[in-house]
């Protein structure tokens, strides 16, 4: 092997290692999905979403889990959790259960301007159904 080829081999090995490390860190540090920047997969009324879970939870799970859902409905409750993050509950008077939207911390300031019974559109990620359908990382759309 001549000196020149040896240098080429060493340099190309270094480049490959560098690219490898770069890809590894990029994958390892892949950011969370940004709900506010992402278009919703599904747009739906909160009552329809709730009914789907009440009727057939398994089927609703396969349809809605991990999806970014834009839901519209009337606010029945506005609270905060122990970390001070906003929680907005959407429900109808006559429905069993509700849709509970846990807001992203960035949205906290906006809840002061909201009122009960106000119609609202919220975008978030559906994580499932307990007594209510739960959406996390929610942002207000209006």
């Amino acid at each position: 092997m001549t000196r020149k080829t040896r240098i080429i081999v060493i340099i190309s090995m270094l480049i490959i290692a560098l690219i490898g490390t770069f890809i590894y860190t990029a994958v390892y540090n892949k950011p969370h999905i940004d709900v506010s920047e992402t278009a919703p997969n599904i747009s739906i009324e909160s009552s329809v979403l709730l009914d789907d879970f009440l009727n057939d939870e398994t089927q609703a799970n396969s349809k809605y889990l991990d999806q970014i859902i834009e839901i519209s409905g009337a606010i029945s409750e506005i609270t905060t959790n122990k970390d001070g993050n906003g929680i907005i509950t959407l429900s109808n008077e006559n429905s069993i259960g509700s849709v509970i939207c846990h807001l992203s911390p960035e949205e906290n300031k906006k809840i002061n301007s909201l009122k009960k019974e106000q119609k609202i559109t919220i975008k978030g990620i559906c994580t499932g159904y307990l007594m209510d359908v739960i959406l996390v990382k929610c942002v207000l759309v209006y």
Partner: protein
Amino acid sequence: MKSINILLCFFLFSTISFGQGKFLTKQGYASFFSSSPAEDIEANNNQVLSIIDTSTGTIAISILMKSFMFEKSLMQEHFNENYVESDKYPKAIFKGQILDFKNIAGNEQVVSIVGDITIHGVTKKLETQGKINKTEGSITLAGDFPVKVADFGIKIPSVVVNNIAETIKVTFELDHKPYKK
């Protein structure tokens, strides 16, 4: 006869007013922590549902696996897809009993909790202790317990065996309010 009836009614009502109390939270907190030489992994869940029946001291807790939020999205993906298979097993459930519930009074009392915990479709007995605060307007329950990953049929691939602890620590903090409806 009449007086007996009245007495009976009175007795019935008094037991109802004592017995109907259900305390509930829909935003309980649960987290787990895995410490290994390679890295520490933590995930938080603020959507825990927990119901205490104050007449019996029974407690039922439901947790959505997909509600566990990790620092890195890759970890969250692996957790849901490869380890707990949350599409197949979307919930973890605990059903049990707070022992000697009737005699709890005062703050920061330590209680024993026994019951069955189901994770990843596998049910195991669980005995743990927690701190309870019981007042008329709230019941808070907090504590932690270890979970052996292998006990629940969760397989960790050998590539990442150094990154994930065999036993993870589960912490819970549940602030129940009276259930009205």
